[in-house]
């Protein structure tokens, strides 16, 4: 492997030399001079942050200067701008300011996120740049002299024709403008400047395979090609062939960066340095981070040794990095860890229901601390586990997993387990789509895929960065693909999130629900609301959604507060759709299974995991534009205090599956995060069925012809149609469109479910981002109000590509059904610029019709957003 790598590097280096000789700022700028032991610190946006995942540039750096023993620290942070860098409370005390890192050289990667300000934002950017350069070049962070500063421009954006994405066309004009501004500022102040825009623009226009996976962020290969460009731009032509094994060196660098990442982007910052460091965090964390920092230093040494051609032992020697503080439990009562059999005896269910064990740590020892699950189109249950929770312990490798369980003989018990992915760190959420799994690994969103069919993920890409990790149990969770194909997930308060997207940076402070369209790379804050810690999201048969806030036990009707509100504003308090009984909750689901009794269909199920341990149940009732619910007998109640239901979903057989996190203690505040009684070895999955009704025969989904799949959109169970839509999403878009046209034409308008069938078709098209105006318009004015409401939501997300979108919305705002009006008022909040006055009129139109709490609330929220936009102070 090593020799081929060497050859590979030569090719890349040669190519880079052809592309561009090194670029310097002003003639006045002193070339970058490095001396032994210099500390090089990278700051700036995601371009910098992602570099540490791959290590290509650092490899070239150490191989060029093996004797200098340079210390490189990457402080890049998703979507950072010169003047906007959101961090959680007291992050400054964590030890990662420039004063802490004492740089001799700073590489500053800014300008990309700022470039979305366009020409209008340029004067501010220039002024900010001036201030930044002045401050950085006059502050002696290392206590002796100010650092040498290098301004690094953004890279170009890339069009991805195969995905109909054109970030390049859209953004490159502005990026060029901002790159030029950086160049001019560098010249003016006599600091070094590296233009990455010009050479990457050229590379991208010539590349046969894309250098980015989303138009803006480089892949591993993209960074491999960027590395020599940056290297040469900083230091000139490479003097000689690297004599060391570059891949070995890169492996050492990546290991160093991984440990540094665990420090810099530590999860649970709130308990380490933030608002809740007292009384427990101050006891255990100082020693942990002292050790981790020594471990990073040990790895620096190994990087230098390998760069210098010295031998290093395979095993890393961390024996000299110090010890942890011994943490005692503060539990005073007896803890009894129950066996699955014992725990099963402690359940109570209403008459007619039964519960059985689907899987536990006894048969499947990998099933430790499971947290979220979902079924795939083959009927297999995927679950992410997190024994590393609450967080990494320095020196103990993390090994959280994504497991796949199968019940191959149909006896209601899992008999086969596959490890899809391992080595993960606190994966708080999972959803399946696009042939793989979206997995939370705070602060990132990963996409994992098995490309060679061996059941194990071999492709891994960080598709989104920048979700805060201040509190690991507030981190992105409750993953759910909505009916239209967007991936939804949510985070809790304390978190300061900033995500870089091809449409500009998106920020969210103190909780929200996110919406991500992987196909178009659109990412936005779906619900910007001061939740405590939301952990539950479900869509009903007609696309209406409900959000459960875990900490306070609140439950909300989603349509009312998912209109747009521009950062940093948030939606005001919304009423809950029923009076909460218990807290804290974790996960919600609607009953939609022919195995369950008739009168329970549509019931809202809600897990509760402290005090009341079980599944609460509420009868839903449509009321005006929204819903209300009233409690009915809980579906499941356990007297086992270890039982912690944290997720639930109906399976393909119509049974309800409930994940049991199983832990005697779960409080973050009440016990040390390192309390030895935090269990890390148990986990169960329970299965609830109704005795006197037959199970649902699981329909065949995986691999079925598209036409058959469309027929399955008529199935009764919500979860079946959800899985069918996910399967259809992976089919060829043109084929899907053709088949849908045929299928829609073949439906009988007399069928009582006719409009629901058409709505399903519209949603499948939305999965594929195929805008079908005809079908949309038909549904907008169809006789079924719930379909009109759902279509109005689709119109909202297609507003930029549907002719006369606001005129269509105005009709919806005057609809005879309040929910359609509510969707219209909500949708009006998405309009910007010249559309604002008209959107305001659309929203006000609803006042000519009967009002209710939700309509009034959403109208006020929409008008506030529009008014702020009109005033221009978004």
């Amino acid at each position: 492997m090593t020799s081929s790598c060497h050859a590979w590097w030569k090719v890349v280096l040669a190519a880079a030399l052809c592309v561009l000789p090194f670029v310097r700022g002003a003639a006045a700028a002193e070339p970058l001079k490095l001396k032994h032991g210099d500390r090089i610190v990278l700051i700036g946006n995601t371009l910098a942050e992602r570099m540490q995942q791959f290590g290509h540039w650092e490899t070239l750096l150490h191989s060029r200067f093996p004797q200098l023993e340079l210390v490189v620290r990457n402080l890049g942070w998703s979507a950072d701008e010169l003047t906007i860098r959101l961090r959680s409370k007291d992050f400054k005390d964590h030890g990662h300011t420039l004063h802490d890192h004492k740089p001799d050289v700073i590489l500053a990667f800014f300008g990309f996120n700022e470039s979305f300000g366009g020409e209008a934002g340029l004067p501010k950017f220039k002024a900010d740049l001036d201030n930044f350069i002045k401050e950085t070049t006059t502050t002696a962070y290392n206590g002796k002299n100010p650092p040498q500063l290098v301004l690094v421009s953004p890279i170009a954006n890339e069009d991805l024709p195969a995905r109909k994405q054109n970030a390049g066309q859209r953004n490159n004009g502005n990026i060029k403008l901002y790159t030029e501004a950086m160049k001019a500022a560098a010249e003016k102040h006599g600091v070094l400047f590296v233009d990455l825009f010009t050479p990457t623009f050229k590379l991208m226009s010539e590349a046969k395979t894309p250098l980015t996976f989303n138009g803006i962020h480089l892949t591993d290969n993209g960074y491999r090609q960027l590395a020599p460009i940056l290297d040469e731009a900083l230091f000139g032509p490479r003097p000689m062939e690297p004599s060391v094994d570059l891949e070995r060196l890169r492996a050492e660098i990546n290991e160093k960066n991984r440990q540094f990442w665990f420090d810099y982007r530590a999860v649970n910052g709130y308990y380490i340095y933030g608002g809740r460091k007292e009384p427990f965090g101050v006891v255990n964390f100082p020693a942990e981070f002292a050790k981790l920092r020594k471990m990073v230093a040990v790895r620096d040494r190994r990087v230098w040794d390998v760069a210098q051609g010295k031998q290093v032992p395979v095993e890393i020697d961390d024996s000299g990095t110090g010890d942890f503080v011994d943490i005692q439990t503060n539990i005073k009562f007896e803890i009894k860890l129950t066996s699955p059999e014992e725990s099963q005896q402690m359940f109570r269910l209403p008459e007619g229901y039964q519960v059985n064990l689907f899987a536990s740590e006894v048969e499947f020892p990998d099933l430790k601390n499971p947290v979220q699950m979902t079924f795939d189109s083959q009927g297999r249950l995927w679950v992410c586990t997190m024994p590393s929770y609450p967080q990494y312990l320095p020196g103990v490798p993390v090994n959280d997993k994504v497991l796949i369980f199968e019940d191959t003989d149909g006896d209601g018990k899992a008999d086969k387990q596959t490890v899809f992915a391992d080595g993960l760190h606190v994966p708080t959420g999972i959803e399946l789509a696009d042939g793989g799994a979206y997995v939370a690994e705070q602060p990132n969103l990963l996409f994992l895929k098995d490309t060679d069919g061996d059941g194990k993920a071999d492709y891994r890409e960080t598709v989104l960065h920048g979700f805060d990790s201040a509190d690991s149990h507030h981190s992105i969770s409750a993953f759910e693909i909505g009916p239209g194909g967007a991936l939804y997930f949510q985070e809790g308060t304390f978190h300061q999130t900033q995500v870089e997207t091809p449409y500009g940076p998106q920020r969210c402070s103190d909780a929200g629900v996110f919406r991500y369209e992987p196909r178009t790379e659109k990412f936005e804050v779906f619900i910007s609301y001061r939740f405590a810690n939301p952990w539950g999201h479900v869509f009903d048969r007609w696309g209406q959604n409900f959000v459960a806030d875990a900490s306070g036990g609140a439950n909300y009707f989603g349509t009312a507060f998912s209109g747009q509100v521009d950062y940093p504003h948030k939606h005001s308090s919304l009423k809950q759709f029923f009076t909460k009984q218990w807290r804290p909750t974790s996960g919600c689901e609607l009953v939609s299974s022919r195995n369950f009794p008739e009168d329970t269909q549509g019931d809202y199920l809600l897990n509760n995991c402290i005090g009341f341990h079980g599944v609460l149940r509420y009868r839903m009732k449509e009321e005006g534009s929204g819903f209300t619910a009233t409690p009915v007998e809980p579906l499941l109640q356990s007297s086992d205090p270890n039982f912690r239901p944290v997720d639930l979903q109906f399976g393909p057989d119509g049974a309800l599956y409930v994940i049991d996190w199983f832990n005697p203690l779960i409080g973050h505040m009440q016990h040390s995060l390192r309390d030895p009684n935090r269990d890390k070895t148990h986990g169960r999955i329970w299965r609830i069925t109704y005795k006197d009704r037959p199970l649902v025969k699981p329909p065949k989904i995986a691999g079925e012809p598209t036409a058959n799949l469309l027929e399955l959109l008529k199935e009764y169970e919500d979860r079946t149609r959800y899985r069918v839509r996910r399967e259809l999403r992976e089919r060829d878009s043109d084929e899907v469109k053709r088949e849908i046209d045929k299928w829609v034409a073949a439906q009988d308008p007399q069928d009582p479910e006719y409009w629901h069938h058409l709505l399903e078709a519209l949603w499948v098209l939305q999965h594929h981002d195929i805008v079908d105006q005809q079908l949309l318009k038909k549904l907008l004015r169809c006789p079924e109000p719930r379909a009109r409401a759902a279509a109005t939501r689709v119109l909202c997300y297609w507003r930029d590509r549907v002719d006369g979108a606001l005129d269509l919305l105005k009709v919806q705002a005057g609809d005879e059904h309040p929910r359609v009006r509510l969707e219209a008022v909500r949708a009006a909040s998405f309009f910007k610029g010249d559309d604002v006055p008209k959107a305001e009129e659309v929203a006000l139109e609803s006042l000519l019709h009967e009002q209710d709490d939700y309509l009034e609330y959403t109208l006020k929220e929409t008008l506030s957003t529009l008014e702020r936009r009109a005033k221009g102070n978004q």
Partner: protein
Amino acid sequence: MKRFAVLIAALLVAAWMAEPLAAQSSPAAAMMRLLRSKRVPEDRIPTLLELVGSRGNGEDLAFIYEQCLADDGYRGDVRLKALDVLAAAATNRQVKPEADLAKLAELVTPKSKEAVDTRTQLAAIRLAGVWKVDALSDRLSSLVNSKNPAVRQAAIDALVAINSEASRQALQKLTAADQPLETRYLGGAALATLDPKGAAGLAADLLAAGTAEVDPAPLIDAFLNHQGGSDLLAAALAGKKLPEEAAKLALRHMYAVGRSDGPLAKILGEAAGVGEEPPPPTEEEIKQLVAEVLQNGDPARGEMIFRRDDLSCMKCHAVSKAGGDVGPDLSPVGATSPPDYLIKSILVPNEAVKEAYLTHIVITDDGKIFQGIIVDRNDERIIIKEASGEQRSIPVASIDEMTEGPSLMPKGLTRFLTRAELVDLVRFLSELGKPGPYAIRTAATMQRWRAMAPHDERLTAEVPDSETFSERVLSAPESQWFPAYAKVAGWLPLEEIAARLKGDVLYLRGEFDVTAAGAVGFQVEYDGPFTIWVNDEPFGSQKEFNTQLEPGRHSVTLRVTGAGQPGSQAANELRLTLVKPAGSQAQFTVVDGR
């Protein structure tokens, strides 16, 4: 018909075109067009008013104001809303109608009750204060002696807000020695709000004249709500002799609203004869306490301490879902929180606060201080929920400083406790939610009660007939019912209630919601004489019975006599459980809460 519609449309367009230019530039222009167009039905006008009120200019507001006064203008709820909206615009955005504000007099001192109802009058009085219409000071002064306490308080508040020579004179009169103590407290509070320094001496004198019967809460609040106010009062109290009971009331109130300002707490504590405020416990002391809790703590005694009025625990916390809702329901607290954590939560409540209970301290430009949980905020105002459960709206523009505040859990309440009592209390809390007598409620026991001890002979002498029951019990005004909460396991201590309400014939009312119709069963555990009704249907003295019920809210009422006679638990305490009889389709829940 069609032609008529076209004509209307043409007129509307004409009205639209004729819109004055000035209004076009108002951010409320689109809403004003709709409001003036009269297209909007009356029941939606309040919404529109609110929208205009939160963004309209002086001219827009003048339109609303004129509609409040015009003969053919807004009436009833619409006018009430209009007045509130005008007040909010002035408070939150400092925008007032461009019109003659003194005309508000018509509503402040109406000629007749028919023309202006009391709610409207109250809103107008408030508005007069918010607008600071000094021309109305005389009229407001005439209202401070109103028989209606709400009108009296509103007039005082308005005079405080106006803060003119005339208004101050009117307030001063309230504190005269010939006024009842309650009125003097109110007057003192008003003057302290205006000038805490100047009024501190007066307040100290008033407190020195205090009694156990009159609650000095408004006077104390006036100082607590002002930055540095409590220190001023403490200084003025130095050397004054305070009656012990008055001092206790003052101190308890202060703790109940989540405050424990040092000097004032100290001086009131001394006068009240309670111990010194102890320093925060050391780790060693906590360890010692934990050991005592485990060894000597008695949860049953602890529960009675938890329920004590003077500790105010249940004002904020519910157990088994019955009680206050300012702090968390404590039902599972023992199962999740070890004793050391509980002790710290009581003695050092600020150390660990759940995110839903994070508080803020807001100090406004005029030195007023607010402390509580922010329940809502927008660009104009924030709404803060105080420890009393009351919500206050604070204009964003008036906020001078906002910091994260301490827990609303009062720090000094333990001064009312002996060490043994603290140990019992912690033991009780640490048992909550664990399997056993303090486990999470699983049966549908009635926890939240309303109790009444009538003096009406028709209710005390014998079991009332159905007409009397309907008229005098079911239709009794809410103000005659007092909150009562069952203990964790559902037992309602009758003795405690009888003592508090000073009567031995008690009427007890609980509520429950039926969501699916069917038979609901009732089980009464009580050895004394009682009569029970479900809604207005009597069931005599049956201890177990079923009845068919339709969906909706229902009530169950018990009349008990001889409460507090010595005997078994079932003679002193009563438990009511709702059950689902075999085969019943009913779904129901008992109503819990505050």
